């Protein structure tokens, strides 16, 4: 009997030690394993050079002896990342400590109680330096739940060589885009007029909202859906016309996400493109077919007279279930510090969330393009800030997609969207 017990004990021990080594995939020195605390930093794929981030993490380790940071990339799209976090956090997983949140998830995760309150890391005085829209995005019920890290907003890219050749100025309004694109594509071969992100996914919502806003429409007001408005119908009609009336946007736009549209434009096959700031540095490589031929301007104006770009960005939150919350918060604070933000902006090309950096001579010398972005970020509009955003976005993705692929009329799509959004919003009410 004794023998049997010991046998079981030893075999269990062996299994345990085996699984312990198997679970530790990184070759962190096992000699100091005993005293090391590990912080897992999870984020989406880094566009551009990931070297600067790694350097910063090593620096954090040096400044915090006994701490090692494991940097884990989620290689999937934002929708899949969302699902990953939701399912993990729902299961109270402690498998990551700090993570990068898409700007649209923050109120949802805060409402679900999955994020550590980080208000003490961002006192009111310190908030001044950040673009106000990012502060709004990380705030839920007056508390801060994520630290602003990287910002983005919609931009209109154009081929300055072609506009010059045919005597057009950079477009100011949607009608300018249509006019230039129709005339130039009629004369140039193998050129699409205007490409954007029309696939049924979050990117389509970002694109569509820019039309809705510039046409004077809104989605939610005072806790109710106002999506079914005359302005919004006209906005969707305009998107449709780009494809089926003016023929400046190819029909396959309904399959395009950021990268395919960026590659089309980057190969010199499109006159205009709506995209995020990241694309710029890729066109500015000398090997690019459109090197030195690209200009950037704000999203065109519509009947409402203003230009509105959709705000994007990734912000750092701390997992409520983290086993080392203070340390995790320290890492989040370090990575969002002015110092780290500058390193990332210089090396990786990230757009920092701090206004002051857009005046930094060193940064502007290296990336003169960023000078232009400050005003755009100041005016960028967040998508509806509500814990129910992801559900509402699902509805918009689907209905906008139906409208631009002519499955429904814009009006029909918006009526359906309105009913579903009201149903979602009703859940908080009695």
């Amino acid at each position, binding site marked *: 009997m004794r023998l049997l017990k010991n046998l079981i004990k030893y075999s269990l021990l062996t299994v345990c030690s085996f699984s312990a080594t198997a679970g530790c995939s990184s070759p962190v020195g096992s000699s100091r394993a005993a005293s090391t605390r590990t912080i897992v930093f999870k984020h989406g794929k880094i566009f551009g050079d990931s070297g600067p981030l790694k350097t910063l993490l090593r620096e954090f380790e040096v400044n915090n002896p006994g701490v090692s940071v494991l940097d884990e990339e989620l290689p999937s799209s934002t929708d899949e990342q969302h699902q990953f976090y939701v399912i993990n956090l729902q299961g109270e997983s402690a498998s990551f400590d700090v993570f990068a949140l898409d700007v649209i998830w923050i109120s949802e995760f805060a409402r679900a109680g999955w994020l550590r309150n980080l208000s003490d890391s961002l006192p009111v005085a310190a908030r001044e330096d950040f673009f106000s829209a990012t502060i709004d995005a990380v705030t839920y019920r007056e508390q801060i739940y994520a630290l602003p890290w990287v910002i983005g907003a919609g931009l209109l890219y154009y081929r300055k060589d072609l506009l010059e050749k045919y005597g057009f100025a950079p477009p100011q309004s949607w009608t300018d885009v249509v006019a230039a694109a129709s005339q130039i594509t009629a004369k140039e071969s193998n050129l699409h007029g205007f490409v954007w992100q029309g696939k049924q996914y979050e990117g389509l919502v970002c694109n569509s909202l820019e039309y809705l806003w510039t046409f004077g429409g809104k989605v939610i007001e005072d806790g109710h859906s106002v999506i079914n408005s005359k302005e919004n119908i006209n906005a969707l009609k305009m998107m449709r016309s780009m494809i089926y009336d003016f023929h400046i946007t190819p*029909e396959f736009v309904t*399959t395009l996400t950021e990268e395919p549209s960026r590659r089309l434009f980057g190969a010199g096959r499109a006159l205009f493109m709506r995209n995020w700031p990241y694309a710029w540095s890729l066109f500015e490589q000398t090997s690019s077919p459109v090197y030195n031929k690209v200009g950037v301007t704000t999203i065109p104006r519509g009947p409402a007279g203003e230009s509105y770009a959709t705000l994007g960005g990734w912000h750092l939150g701390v997992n409520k279930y983290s086993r080392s919350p203070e340390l995790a918060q320290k890492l989040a604070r370090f990575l969002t510090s002015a110092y780290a933000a500058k390193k990332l902006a210089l090396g990786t090309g990230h757009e920092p969330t701090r206004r002051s950096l857009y005046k930094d001579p060193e940064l502007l010398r290296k990336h003169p393009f960023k000078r232009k972005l400050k005003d755009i970020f100041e005016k960028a509009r967040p998508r509806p800030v509500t814990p129910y955003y992801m559900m509402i976005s699902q509805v918009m993705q689907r209905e906008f*997609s*139906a409208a631009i692929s*002519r*499955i429904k009329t814009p009006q029909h799509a918006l009526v359906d969207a309105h009913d579903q959004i009201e*149903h979602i919003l009703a859940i908080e009410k009695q």
Partner: protein
Amino acid sequence: MKRFGLKYLYLLPAMLVLMLVTIYPLVHVVALSLHRKLLIFDISRFVGFANFEFMLGDSRFWTALGNTAYFTLVSVALELAIGLGIALLLNRSFKGRGLMRSVVLLPWAIPTVVSAKMWEWIYNADYGVLNYLLNIDINWLGSPAWALNAAVLMDVWKTTPFVAILLLAALQDIPDDLYRAARVDGAGTLKILQRITLPMILPMIWVVVIFRTLDAFRVFDAVYVLTGGGPAGSSETLSIYAYNLLFQTLQFGYGSAVALSVFICVGLITLVLIRAMRRSEW
């Protein structure tokens, strides 16, 4: 008496797991469907049949139901027709029958996800081999008119072999005497097919139709991986809609109601088909 009880012990393990993993969840899903339940915000409120009421007015639900019905009808019809053809062919005597049967089984046996990825690549609008071979330019997966049909085509490729193999088994059970006698009577090939072959395999045809219909109606992975239900929901089936409600936004109440609707539909279809089978004669 003791022996009597012991016999049932053999059923016990199977019964227990089936209770835990199928019967109990089935009861629970009904309960869930009567709640407005958002797992992520810990919201759970009993709402009676409100979810089903909303479902009746939910255009997305009706589109998904329509897509599912279309997918089921067209794919089962095509699979039956082509499968019968292949079965008749394989029922002849030729060299390499075993090898041929393996070849035919292959599409059925490979993972659905793999076949969806394969076809996604074949359908690719820019570099897809299908457009190249047919020398056309169709946006198979990106256009609302084609996406669901593309999924049907893939399913036909994947499951026709299953149909063919089952029908072949039935064909092989037909005694040769019957054919010989018919030929003596001077019946032609068509007559034999109509008078002997089809009536003899009718029971198996019904089995296949029932199996395939129920299987096609709950289709998830094939379409989910191939098109994700897009574009604009034009290929979204009921299972995909339910899955998205449940796991993209953790709407467990309404999601369960939609999931339950799949179950109800499958139940109704089974009843109708079994009644039709009982009444059928060739």
